[in-house]
């Protein structure tokens, strides 16, 4: 699964580089669950990042979400994004940090 990464979630790692912030993994402000893209069903990275110049892309598996973070994953297709899905569950600080540590960066945001 892929999650778009706001450039402000790409923070100094204390060693001269950058790392992902756990703030990237949270439910939405309106109370809806965390949005992700089902990677295998997207046309590609460019389609997921279209319209969001400078944003990055992080990837994690459904197994991490389900079995390590104790979340549910459900399809939630949108009119123009059939590959949209929700990661459902409470995002405690520990859960968000676990998502961060178990995610990889596919496209680094531009600071």
């Amino acid at each position, binding site marked *: 699964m892929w999650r778009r990464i706001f450039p*402000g979630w790409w*923070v100094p790692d204390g060693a001269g580089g950058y790392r992902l912030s756990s703030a990237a993994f949270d439910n939405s*402000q309106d109370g809806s669950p965390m949005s992700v893209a089902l990677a295998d069903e997207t046309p590609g990275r460019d389609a997921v990042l279209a319209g969001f110049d400078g944003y990055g892309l992080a990837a994690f598996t459904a197994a991490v979400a389900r079995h390590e973070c104790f979340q549910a994953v459900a399809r939630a297709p949108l009119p123009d994004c059939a590959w949209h899905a929700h990661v459902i569950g409470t995002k405690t*600080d520990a859960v968000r940090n676990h998502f961060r540590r178990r995610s990889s960066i596919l496209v680094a945001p531009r600071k």
Partner: protein
Amino acid sequence: MTSLAPTAGTHTTTPTWASASQQPPVPRARRAPRRLLTEPKLVPLTLAESALIIEVGAEEPAWFYSTLSGLQHLSQLGDNWDSYGSRPPHDDVIITALDLIARLLSYDSIAPAIVPTSEGGVQLEWHRDGHELEIRVRANGEISAFRFDEAAGQGATVERISLSDLGPLVALTGRL
């Protein structure tokens, strides 16, 4: 870093008119009030719906300006900043984060990374030598903290932190 300085000098010599002439002195233009070294420095912080004046009693800590800049930047985020429909953190949340920082950090503390959360909160982060510390101020004002030691693979959480009692937070964070 700038230091406080008086805006006008002090005179220690006798004015020349006093001994050289019996003519009465010509009144001089009134000086602007002097700033004393002990006066606090006033630093403005402009947020979306409010403006603060922050008093700094002594020389500013190293983290001071980068922290204010980071908080101000959060206030200037636009709608849908995260691409998932979120709005920027409300001023109250940013002010709570600033209050927390001022209480928690000492003069030579390391500046935190300041990041917005999709939920409408502010997160402060420090990462150093395999140790992670994250303090989150939620949109509703609740404060929590998470510390993770990568070498040990262990984390610890403190929730429902009150600004009036930072003891549990300090116990978790140690010296920043």
